[in-house]
């Protein structure tokens, strides 16, 4: 019983990471129709930036999250401005290829600069609280809390501000939105920067729990792509529910069935959902 609760909490922690990356991916995907693989590499770069901000620049943890967030947003913003913008409206294969190339580029740059050896981020907050007979470390709670806060902020941004409403409009119908006077260029820039910032935050939040290494972005990227599809486009709540759900399924499956296939369970969930609901669980479009 204790283990069940523990696994569920672990699942929520890793699930909120998936959900954070997926939120940015979802926005980018719904505006540009491109699954932006390069977010997986921005995740890696941001984790290293956070790592060096803490160990080398001796910044406090929250400040290093902010630094990494800015770097991630800047990278995504630049990539969109210099590359993805060129091919808007042409076949998606080119944009996807470019995203994959950027993913290769950045994750291999990480190998070149910082070697393939895993780095361990020092713990920034010690202590744990008892919960139903076992302990949860504060660091894990911080991940969940930060994810919650960011989801709230993004939800507010999307539904309440003018820019957010433009994003919603553009994701539903680009031409009409443009005719209504929405600047698609700005929308694209904002969405990419937001995606980069969210992935970077997720990266720095998990860095102290696991370790920092150049291929750390592969699996979270894959899982968050699944979360996007499961959740369906244009639903912030759907992304949150599916992200957490996938995390819990994985960690329970890994514990009770077989840990060797831990990263394969999401495939079965995906196939099951798509067979019955091809538009995702919460999709509106």
């Amino acid at each position, binding site marked *: 019983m204790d283990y069940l609760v523990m696994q569920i909490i672990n699942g929520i922690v890793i699930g909120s990471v998936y959900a954070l990356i997926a939120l940015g991916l979802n926005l980018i*995907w719904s505006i540009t*129709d491109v*699954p932006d693989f390069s977010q997986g590499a921005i995740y890696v770069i941001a984790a290293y930036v956070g790592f060096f901000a803490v160990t080398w620049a001796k910044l406090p943890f929250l400040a290093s999250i902010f630094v990494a967030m800015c770097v991630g947003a800047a990278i995504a913003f630049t990539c969109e401005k210099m*590359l993805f913008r*060129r*091919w808007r409206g*042409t076949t*998606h*294969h*080119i944009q*996807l*290829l*470019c995203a*994959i*190339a*950027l993913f*290769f*580029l950045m994750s*291999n*740059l990480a*190998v*070149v600069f910082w070697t393939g050896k895993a780095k361990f981020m020092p713990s920034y907050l010690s202590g744990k609280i008892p919960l139903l007979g076992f302990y949860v470390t504060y660091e894990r709670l911080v991940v969940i809390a930060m994810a919650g806060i960011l989801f709230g902020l993004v939800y507010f941004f999307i539904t309440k501000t003018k820019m957010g409403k433009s994003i919603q409009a553009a994701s539903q119908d680009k031409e009409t939105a443009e005719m209504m006077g929405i600047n698609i260029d700005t929308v694209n820039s904002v969405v990419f920067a937001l995606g980069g910032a969210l992935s970077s935050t997720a990266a720095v939040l998990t860095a102290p729990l696991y370790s920092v290494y150049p291929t750390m972005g*592969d699996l979270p990227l*894959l899982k968050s*792509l*699944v979360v996007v*599809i499961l959740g369906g486009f244009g639903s912030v709540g759907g992304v949150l529910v599916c992200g957490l759900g996938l995390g819990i399924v994985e960690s329970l499956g890994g514990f009770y069935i077989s840990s*060797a*296939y831990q*990263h*394969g369970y*999401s*495939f079965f969930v*995906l*196939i099951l959902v*798509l*067979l019955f609901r*091809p538009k995702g669980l919460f999709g509106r479009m």
Partner: protein
Amino acid sequence: MKNSLREVAKAKFGIKKLMGLVILLIVLLLIPRVASNYIVYVMILAMLYAMLTVSYDLLLGYTGQLSFCHGAFYGIGAYTSALLTLKAGLPFWVALPISGMFTFVVGAGVGYPALRLRGAYFAVTTFFFGHLVYLVILNSYKLTGGPLGLRDIPPPEGFLGIDFSSMNSSYYLILVFGILMVVFLYRLVRSGIGRIFIAIREDQDFAEAIGINTAAFKVLSFSISAGLAGLVGSLFAHFFRLLHPSTFAWMTSEMVVIMTLFGGAGTLFGPILGAGIVTFVLEVMRFAPEFRYVIWAIALIVVLVFEPKGLIGIIERIGRLWRKK
């Protein structure tokens, strides 16, 4: 009608193209005579990749379905063939067609549910299937040796006095298979079935409206391309004689997609060229292993910015400039 037929015939048997092909063939045949063993080895690697990529071009370039699990079919073919010869004692010449057919069936089994989805949904689902195959290979210790891989896979049995365990004879064997595969695909994409594939690529809804069973033909294209990948996997297994799961991880599938689009999808020749160039560039860069993928990714982005159609687009441009002069 007559005119258009003549045009087709001209396009097919343009004298310049034919000469080019003959010269290419002679060069390919002569390489083991003049080049060192290392070059022959790299050529074999390039040919295997080219075959894998060209079989993928049928799916992406002609049917317009982006998938990320070609490396998985390659792996299934390789492991099936290796296990058939190692555990069941079958000769290579029996194991090769069986592994191709088995991969074809697996492709149909996966394609049937997955191809109900479209575009990026399909792509991500196949991505996961690829990862699942990798996990199964990695974790079935008893059957596949898990992370240790399989060793001592026998080389193809020789006949008529040819011994296929030497480098040069494997080169010719793989070259023959490669030519057969390209001719098969060339005939296929120009047949009625190929036209249906192209119709699906251009507009799936329209194809359905004019009475094409798009679901069946998409699955057909997917499984043919999977089956061919299985054959290439079998050749790979019996040439290298050892297998490791990491060869079939998602990196391979991504490389296949990149090589296809880099060369120019939907042209058959483009992907072959793309695969050849990528293999050689990565091989030449071996002196700086960390920088290989960095420089390669930058080159890819530069090509994309310059010419979105890939290498074929650049060649066409040069050809147009040539004619203007």
